């Protein structure tokens, strides 16, 4: 029976990225996927006639340009098109727009508060200063603070230097920033409720935290640190939906001779004499390989796909304690035409933007209260985009695809499984909120797909359907991600590696975990490195 150099479990964008860089280095790699389609949570599927849905992730910004370039993803069909700003509709009939053009953005803020308009400049530089610290570490392995290996010491020194660079008086700010809530942080700069509400969304997306929870200021960064073509903080659509990201990486992988197997769900990671030796598939087949790389989240990898006896006690407990909580859902909608939003003047550039329908900090926090009570938000925070306003490939001409990301939505309802009527009621909540601002929206709906965290877990395999493969809180970041002592992509079993978003630097369709893992694996195998360096921000 053939033994591969490596088997990668899960053909999401990170699994494929690791697989591609390993194959590029000349390894014989097979990537296995449980579904009959690839992509994991970076996926495009046709569920209604000629409409293509970005079923899970829906915008692209964090994908590292270094990886795009190194894998020549444009040759494999990936094209990321940036889109304008964002928009928050207000209950009083007004709206607040966040524009791409800085002068227009200034005028819009000044419409609410001249003070806030001016404050933005300082807010931006303070926040970007924090961003600069983290951006440099995205494409590198976190150093282990307990190790005395030269590589780790050097890594720690680099982190230290980056902190010192921000300036002595600013270190205090940095420590505060990393532990604060997004609400407190915004309060230090702005007075206008809707402006704060509009900005606070980035602090809670994908997390089971509220805007007043400590640690959410950092999550803000996670949504600011991406860039499209050097415009830091801006977002784009992948032409053809997010599946184009995975599709292009898979194309690169196969162009390097890699093998892709779908409908090959992994039942067990095979360990013999303390070494990972391959995987046992659900259909009973075995695939042997010298190393095994898991792109699954850390819980699914160690709690579901390994023999209990192959994992040490302490590690097992820590994995059990790792926080992956279902907190967001999705509603994907096929539309017969473009819905109108009468509050927004015709021709305004924000008709192409991400739209929100919650206009106060109070409403943001109340949305979280529902989740804590074990149900979905009755007045949810929705991040809504219509990619077909710029992408002609996702729906027939004149028709549209709408993606709604909904916060909050629990994995279980008051501790029990979702029923179909409850899923419908969840969808109705979302549709009703949007319809409050778009009178013709409801009658344009042709088909929709409801995705609760339970659905995402069921279909994609991510524990509790958490989009980041685990909370992005300080206790689970950098050298603590996923488990202290195991942040360098190596599992506590020889020959077993982790490359999913449970590892540094976390989720968001960055492909950085996958690339970083590949770099470590190639170093262990003493193969030439194929993974690019960070462009550097200077």
């Amino acid at each position, binding site marked *: 029976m053939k033994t591969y150099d490596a088997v990668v479990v899960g053909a999401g964008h990170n699994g494929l990225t690791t697989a591609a860089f390993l194959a590029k280095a000349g390894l014989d790699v097979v990537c296995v996927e449980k579904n009959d389609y690839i992509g994991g949570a970076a996926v495009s599927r046709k569920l209604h006639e000629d409409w293509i849905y970005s079923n899970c992730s829906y915008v692209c910004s964090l994908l590292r*340009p270094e990886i*795009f*370039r190194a894998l020549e*993803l*444009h040759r494999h069909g990936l*094209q*990321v*098109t*940036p889109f*304008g700003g964002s928009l928050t509709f207000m209950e009083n009939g007004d709206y607040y727009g966040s524009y*791409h*053009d800085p002068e227009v953005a200034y005028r819009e803020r000044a419409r609410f508060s001249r003070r806030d308009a001016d404050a933005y400049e300082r807010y931006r530089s303070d926040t970007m200063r924090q961003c600069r610290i983290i951006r440099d570490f995205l494409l590198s392995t976190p150093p282990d603070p307990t190790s005395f290996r030269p590589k780790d010491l050097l890594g720690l020194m680099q982190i230290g230097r980056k902190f010192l660079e921000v300036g002595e008086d600013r270190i205090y700010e940095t420590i505060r920033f990393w532990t604060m809530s997004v609400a407190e942080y915004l309060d230090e700069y702005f007075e206008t409720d809707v402006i704060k509400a509009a900005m606070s969304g980035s602090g809670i997306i994908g997390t089971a935290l509220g805007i007043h929870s400590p640690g959410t200021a950092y999550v803000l960064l996670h949504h600011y640190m991406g860039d*499209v*073509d*050097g*415009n830091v903080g801006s977002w784009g659509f992948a*032409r053809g939906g997010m599946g184009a990201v995975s599709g292009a990486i898979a194309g690169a992988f196969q162009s390097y001779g890699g093998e892709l197997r779908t409908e090959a769900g992994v039942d067990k990671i095979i360990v013999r004499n303390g070494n990972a030796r391959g995987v046992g598939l659900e259909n009973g087949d075995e695939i042997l390989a010298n190393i095994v790389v898991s792109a699954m989240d850390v819980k699914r990898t160690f709690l579901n796909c390994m023999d209990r006896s192959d994992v040490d006690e302490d590690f097992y407990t820590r994995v059990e304690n790792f926080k992956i909580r279902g907190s967001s859902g999705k509603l994907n909608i096929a539309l017969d035409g473009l819905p109108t939003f009468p509050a927004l003047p015709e021709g305004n*550039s924000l008709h192409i933007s991400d739209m929100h329908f919650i206009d106060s900090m109070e409403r943001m926090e109340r949305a979280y209260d529902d989740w804590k009570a074990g149900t979905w938000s009755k007045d949810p925070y929705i991040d809504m985009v219509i990619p077909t306003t*710029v*992408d*002609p*490939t996702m729906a027939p*001409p*004149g028709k549209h695809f709408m993606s709604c990301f909904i916060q909050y939505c629990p994995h279980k309802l008051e501790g029990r499984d979702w029923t179909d009527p409850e899923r419908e009621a969840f969808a109705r909540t979302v549709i009703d909120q949007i319809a409050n601002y778009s009178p013709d929206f409801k009658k344009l709906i042709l088909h929709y797909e409801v995705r609760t965290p339970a659905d995402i877990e069921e279909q994609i395999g991510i524990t509790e359907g958490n989009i980041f493969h685990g909370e992005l809180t300080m206790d689970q970041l950098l050298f603590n991600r996923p488990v202290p002592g195991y942040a360098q992509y190596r599992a506590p079993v020889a020959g077993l590696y982790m490359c999913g978003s449970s590892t540094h630097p976390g989720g968001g369709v960055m492909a950085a975990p996958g690339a970083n893992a590949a770099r470590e694996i190639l170093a262990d195998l003493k193969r030439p490195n194929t993974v690019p360096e960070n*462009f*550097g921000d*200077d």
Partner: protein
Amino acid sequence: MSAREVPQGRLRTPFYSRLAELDTLNAWHTWKGYTVPDALYCADTEYFAIRNSTAVFDLTPMTKYRITGPDALVYIDRLVTRDMSKIRPGRVAYAVWCNDQGQTIDDGTIFHLREGEYRLCSQERHCAWLMDSAIGLDVSITDETADVAALAVQGPTSFATLSRMGIDGLGELKPFGLMHVDFDGFELMVSRTGFTGDLGYELWTAPENAVSLWDYLFAAGEITGIRAMGTDALEQARIEAGYIMAYIDFLPANATMRTGRTRSPLELGLDWLVDFKKPNFNGRRALAEEKRSGSTWRLVKLDIEGNKPAHHAYIFADRKGRKNIGFVTSATWSPVCKQNIALGTVRMPLGAPGSELWVEIFYQREMHWSRVMARAEVVDKPFWFPKRRGLTPPDLV
């Protein structure tokens, strides 16, 4: 005869009223005396319309000459370096023409409109040179720049847009082909040409039809993502396509003062346009001699590491920067390729495709300047050359 004052301000193209309606930025500049937009909404959005849907560019200010007469082919074939006898009616040729020393005067496109009837379209004005070259031949040359309104319609849905507009037979039109259609009672010429390196067409008609053409086009494009664009977006796209520009990547030979500042076609990577097998053409002897003894310069396409655009950068043979061998003429970050790309001119024999050069990039961050020596690979092919550009018939999206 009474004295007539020439227009003192910037001219307006026949599409001006429509461009002005769409304009939100109020950012205009002058191009050959016409007022044209840098961008109308946002240069990024307009750029992505080229690569993602349909972008429309008003190219009316391009210099256009009508060349007719019994000797038209003989004349043009003697003017340019490529074999024009192969360009049948209904075809378009990219071409370059030289002075006696084999130095490039300009490049442009030559449309073989009908048997013996041509349109030469170029960036610069060349009436004097063209007239002088015609002496002794039965050929007539007319400047028709202001008599032809022209739009470039470029991007992956450009075919869908124009088909929806009702242009029949467009599906069979091959790259560098042209066709005449009767459109809503007026004459329209459609060519499958452009300056973006993507699937695209150019529409040519009399100025009085311009507004009507625009309206039909934008009505058809409403559901195919049509956008008007300015020159900023075009500049980015043309570098990705590897297209050169007069006064940027080379100087028109007849307009330079300093020795050694001109370039031959061979030095601009246009050797494929120079045909020594055809009858005599202007500059032939000099070019043959250059081919034999070697060129001084070479145009290079550079794929540069990192993400800092290499505007005006010096090019070196070594990392330490001991040997300066040339400079960058055009540079941009390529949003579709996620590559840091540039065109440059370097001294032969350096810069062969596949070789490694070094580019000295200066960049400013918060007032302070820094410098980086970036590795660059010389590449052979255009940075961007999507399959759809060559497909006949093209896909609808």
